């Protein structure tokens, strides 16, 4: 009886899920070499582990760096990914920067800087959004000032009132309200 049940189920939904992410626009079956050339010609370019670049690197494609770069990297409209093997000693300017390797130098992104677990940044970050994962290393300053910095002034004053009922309802807010005020 159970077997019958199982035999019916898989026919419908689960089958496509593992295969789904690799479907390329090209009609040919997804051979890995094919995919690599596609990414090279189209969206994303890789700089391999053994590559060392000294100087200025700029472009208009998303870029993943696994090698060493010293100097300056400028991808103002694109995403720069520093892979786990990537080592950068450079000033970095990009739309978004994802760091899984090591960066020494200032990082400026117009959208987001994301330092992932084991990623390392030694330098100042300027970006409207910054995410630093738990195991990441970061030393420097983060400048998240936005063009419209006005809501910042209103938020903290308004938010506590809103946060209070939410916190009371929250299961994590364990210890009850408390405290005696000592100072003036």
């Amino acid at each position, binding site marked *: 009886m159970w077997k019958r*049940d199982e035999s019916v189920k898989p026919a419908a939904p689960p089958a496509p899920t593992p295969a789904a992410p690799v479907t390329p626009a090209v009609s040919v079956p997804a051979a890995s070499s094919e995919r690599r050339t596609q990414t090279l010609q189209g969206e994303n370019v890789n700089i391999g582990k053994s590559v060392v670049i000294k100087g200025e690197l700029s472009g208009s494609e998303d870029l993943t760096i696994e090698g060493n770069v010293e100097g300056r990297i400028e991808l103002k409209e694109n995403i720069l990914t520093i892979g786990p093997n990537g080592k950068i000693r450079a000033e970095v300017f990009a739309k978004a920067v994802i760091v899984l390797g090591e960066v020494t130098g200032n990082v400026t992104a117009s959208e987001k800087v994301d330092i992932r677990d084991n990623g390392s940044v030694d330098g100042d970050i300027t970006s409207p959004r*910054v995410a630093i994962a738990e195991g990441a290393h970061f030393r420097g*300053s983060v400048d*998240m000032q936005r063009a419209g910095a006005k809501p*910042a002034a209103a938020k*903290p004053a308004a938010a506590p009132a809103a946060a209070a009922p939410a*916190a009371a309802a929250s299961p994590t807010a364990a210890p009850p309200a408390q*405290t005696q005020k000592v100072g003036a």
Partner: protein
Amino acid sequence: MADSARTMTDWLGFLGNRRAAEPAPAAVTPSTKPELSHPTKSLQKFLRLQAGQDNPVLLDLGPVVGSNVTFFGEQLGCRIRVEDVASDIEAHIKKDITDQLPAFFRSRFVQAPGSVDGILCWDALDYLDRNAAQALAASLTNLLRPEGALLGFFSTTESRNAVYTKYVVVDHQHLRYRPYPASRPRQRALLTGDIIRMFKGLRVSDSFLMKSNVREMLFRKNPAP
């Protein structure tokens, strides 16, 4: 045949449902114990003071906590610099040169005097002996701009646990205390009078004794003469 099998399954659907539902209770009861969050009274006051500034400059003396950086950045649109004092203390302990900590803290910070709007000192002073704590307090006082704010936590009980604490901001009124290993425990519980004397040049704006045995103190720098 397949149709009849499906019909049977539909008929006995309640069995199928029970079977499908079995994993659900396991998913509801998470294996990881949720961390407790502790109320904080001083954080929202600190934020309120910073909110009056355009793009304030903050100095965070704790270890890097990504969510804190995001929180302060988003709330204040600030420039935040993380200077992990605990790692400095650890380095000195490991090299057995803790006697050099006072001199180290006198020249530790590169920021210009009076250039910082807010300092998140957390509980850094608890891990220092009197001279080093005094040196650090003096440096921090020097960094603050007039009317700038400093948030400090001070343990009110002695502890032999060799742990530092990461203070993770949950929201304006709650923090998570996340301990991590240290080479030595807190040095001693400072008396309120000692703390106030240490921060000569600052005045106590608020002081809260929390049930977690932490005294939260918010200091403001005196206005420029």
